[in-house]
């Protein structure tokens, strides 16, 4: 970790204490660009125009308050951040109060909850800051007792004098401690000394979610707040030609009907908002609203057209080179033991259980927003130029998120709420119906992949060629360089393969289409890994090797061997029975490696059923094993949905599936038994929320091949029809 200063400046600790009364405040700065947090001294901070974050505050009653700069969308930051802090600060977890930060990246650094980055991006600094604060409190106590710090220890929010047994609670020490210089070097605990980290402690937000008191975006109410629904162009980029609100205005409670135009990447989404005193009235008003659209000027594509274009671009020689080594194409051409396959994955809707919604109150020259938002600072940055308001005048408050999965990192719905509130001069909540949420995107991009590979005389891969075709999310932004290749084209591939494969070529053929696309849990890894790991299996078959053994012989580092050994051991891979199909897949994304084995068998009626999934997660350093287990279970079930139950199709430029009756979610009846194992090692922390999604689909189809000799190369597929 690169540090700008050797220690945390004392002034960093106390800067905010004047604002909060006597309190010890600990802060640091997350660089927006870097991967890890940096401690930064105040002088530098001032030069950079950075205000330091009061991350942890201890008041005179000993109450610890943590400001959570990231959102809580189910992934558990609300629990894992306090667990880290409580460990080194030596406080009881129950004495920590956690509050949501407002958007402010000058203060907190990047706040985007994405890339499975919350813990891996901050844990080292959180440990160090907490330990520093503890040392300062101990020193303060030693001073009061006129003794040496070595005679004291900290426990449960107290400093205790060993020889006499005298104690101070932290609250009694904060004033004295805030005057001290922070320690230059603090010794952090070894993992075997942890009392709180690594423990499956229950989440603090659970009780709020079992009695209905957790406030999600949709639950936010303001005095005098109106409700808005928006009829948006179903073809994403069309314009409002005209609208007739005669019938709408006859409905009691309707207050306003107005055209709105939201920024969506480099295009606009137009619609007509119906505003009423109840959401129900607004919904009724929308039903009888007549809108005429202007849909000229862009293509109205169907799923067939989209995939035909991807398929054509896979065949053409025109593609962008992503990463190469050796002479893959030449070796492949000359080989007499080669495999070639094309894989296809669908467009998908995020379908968070909480549909998109946002409350906005625009007053004079300031805007305040409340909502289920993954990136409050992104909302500020996005809206500031669009509304002509300085960032400081845009206050963004996070609520709990009823799911996020990447969709709630996009800023169109706060924009919509802001525009409407400004126009109607009242606080307003914009609510997307389930149909809006399912049909409007941005979607996970559908992808096609062409894989080619050859096997040498020893049964090893000698060439590996991979070409992807599909929309590049980055190409949608204004002034995007459409000649740039997809930076995530190899996401999901095991890093170690880049060393062990002698010849490889990764290339990308971007598809230009007017369908808005965006991050969907684990982003491109969610689709890439289906191609990578299906193809690994096809190569293993060609080489006449056991799929697990075949992967093992290409893994050069012990970390990967440990993982594959664990997978083999827990799943009983070697002792599997004849009527059982076993499939394996391993993917690496967001700095974690996850291997999954799926077991399938045939039901009495001959149809295939998924019996069990074993998942082995190597995320390096970790906090709460139960939260990790929950994330893996959830990722597998979400991956199951994208593999066998749902997909978004397009017809005449519009999304076909509108609600859960046609966009069919996996349900409790579809859920197999899931067994999770977490590797213990000395590696750095990796992501947890996303990396276990990518391996599931290929592990499943590989298992089906093992059972039936039928190779599935296109998702989704119907398990009933295998």
């Amino acid at each position, binding site marked *: 970790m690169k540090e700008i200063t050797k220690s945390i400046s004392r002034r960093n600790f106390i800067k905010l204490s004047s604002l909060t009364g006597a309190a010890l405040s600990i802060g640091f700065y997350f660089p927006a660009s870097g991967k890890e947090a940096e401690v930064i001294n105040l002088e530098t901070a001032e030069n950079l125009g950075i205000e330091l974050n009061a991350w942890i505050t201890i008041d005179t009653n000993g109450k610890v308050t943590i400001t959570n700069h990231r959102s809580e*969308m*189910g*992934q*558990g930051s609300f629990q894992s951040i306090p667990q880290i802090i409580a460990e080194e600060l030596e406080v009881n977890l129950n004495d920590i109060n956690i509050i949501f930060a407002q958007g402010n990246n000058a203060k907190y650094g990047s706040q985007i909850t994405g890339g499975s980055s919350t813990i891996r991006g901050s844990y080292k600094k959180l440990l160090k800051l907490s330990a520093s604060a503890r040392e300062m409190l101990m020193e303060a106590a030693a001073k009061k007792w006129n003794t040496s710090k070595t005679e004291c220890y900290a426990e449960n929010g107290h400093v205790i004098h060993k020889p006499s047994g005298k104690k101070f609670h932290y609250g009694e020490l904060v004033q004295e401690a805030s005057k001290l210089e922070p320690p230059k070097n603090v010794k952090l605990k070894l993992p075997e000394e942890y009392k709180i980290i690594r423990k499956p402690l*229950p*989440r603090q*937000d*659970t*009780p*709020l*979610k*079992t*009695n*209905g*008191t*957790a*406030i*999600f975006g*949709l*639950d936010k*109410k303001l005095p005098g707040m109106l*409700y808005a629904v928006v009829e948006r162009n179903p073809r994403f980029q069309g314009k409002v030609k005209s609208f007739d609100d005669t019938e709408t205005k006859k409905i*009691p409670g309707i207050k306003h009907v107005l055209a709105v135009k939201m920024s969506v990447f480099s295009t606009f989404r137009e619609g007509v908002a119906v505003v009423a005193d*109840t*959401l*129900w*009235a607004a919904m*009724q008003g929308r039903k009888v609203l007549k809108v005429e659209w202007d849909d000229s000027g862009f293509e109205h594509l169907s799923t067939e057209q989209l995939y035909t274009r991807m398929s054509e671009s896979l065949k053409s020689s025109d593609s962008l080179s992503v990463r190469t080594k050796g002479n893959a194409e030449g070796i492949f051409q000359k080989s007499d033991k080669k495999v070639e396959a094309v894989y296809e994955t669908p467009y998908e809707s995020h*379908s*968070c*259980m*909480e*549909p998109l919604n946002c409350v906005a109150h625009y007053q004079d020259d300031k805007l305040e927003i409340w909502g289920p938002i993954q990136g409050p600072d992104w909302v500020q940055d996005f809206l500031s130029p669009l509304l002509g308001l300085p960032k400081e005048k845009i206050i963004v408050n996070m609520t*709990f*998120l*009823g*799911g*996020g*999965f990447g969709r709630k990192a996009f800023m169109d719905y706060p924009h919509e709420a802001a525009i409407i509130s400004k126009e109607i001069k009242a606080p307003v909540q914009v609510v997307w*119906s*389930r149909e809006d949420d399912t049909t409007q995107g941005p979607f996970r991009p559908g992808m096609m992949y062409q894989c080619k590979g050859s096997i040498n005389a020893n049964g090893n891969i000698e060439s590996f060629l991979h070409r992807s075709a599909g929309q590049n999310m980055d190409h949608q932004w204004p002034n995007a360089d459409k000649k740039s290749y997809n930076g995530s084209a190899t996401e999901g591939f095991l890093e170690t393969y880049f060393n062990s494969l002698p010849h490889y070529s990764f290339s990308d053929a971007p598809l230009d289409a007017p369908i808005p696309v965006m991050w969907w849990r684990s982003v491109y890894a969610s689709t890439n890994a289906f191609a990578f790991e299906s193809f690994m299996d096809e190569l293993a078959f060609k080489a006449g090797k056991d799929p697990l053994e075949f992967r093992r012989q290409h893994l050069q580092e012990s970390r990967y061997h440990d993982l594959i050994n664990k997978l083999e051991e827990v799943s009983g891979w070697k002792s599997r029975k004849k009527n059982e199909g076993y499939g394996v897949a391993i993917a690496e994304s967001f700095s974690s490696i996850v291997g999954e084995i799926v077991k399938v068998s045939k039901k009495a009626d001959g149809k295939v059923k998924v019996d069990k999934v074993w998942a082995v997660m190597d995320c390096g350093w970790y906090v709460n094993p*139960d939260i990790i287990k*929950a*994330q893996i*279970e*959830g*990722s*597998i*079930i*979400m991956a199951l949905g994208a593999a066998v139950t749902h997909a978004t199709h397009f017809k005449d430029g519009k999304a076909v599936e509108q*609600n*859960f*009756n046609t966009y069919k*979610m996996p*349900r*409790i*009846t579809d*859920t197999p*038994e*899931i067994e999770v194992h977490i590797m213990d090692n000395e590696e750095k922390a990796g992501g947890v929320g996303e990396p276990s999604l990518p391996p599931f689909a290929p592990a499943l189809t590989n298992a089906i091949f093992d059972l039936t000799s039928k190779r599935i190369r296109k998702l989704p597929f119907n398990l009933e029809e295998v």
Partner: protein
Amino acid sequence: MASLTLKINNKNHTVDVDPKMPLLWAIRDVVGLTGTKYGCGIAQCGACTVHLGGTPVRSCSIPVSAAANKDIVTIEGLSSDNSHPVQQAWIAEQVPQCGYCQSGQIMAATALLKKTPNPTDKDIDMAMQGHICRCGTYPRIRKAIKAASQLMNQKASIK
């Protein structure tokens, strides 16, 4: 518009609403109990589940007029202090992730256990398959229902 009496969690609320308004919106936006959630509006996901006359119903698909003067129980009425055995089991098994669908899941599980105190896996499937959880908490829901069943049986045997 009509003036209706809604008996929610043993408390009477007089509401002046469009009688066709779904019960869900009357509970959330008129009475102000936001624990009951909107998920799909077409009775496909179960997030809006409440008990009407002791039976779990999809409040998004029932007009408020059909619920007038009947006993309605929402998540808030189960217990505010999480003392209900189903809530206890949900906490013990750490079921919720984002938590948005859980009010509906808990109301469905409570109704199941009232009717079937010792549910089999099949009973659980039947009662819970109408409920979607995008976070994928299904394995824990299954465990929590079994744990709640045990808790309730223990309580019953103490009595």
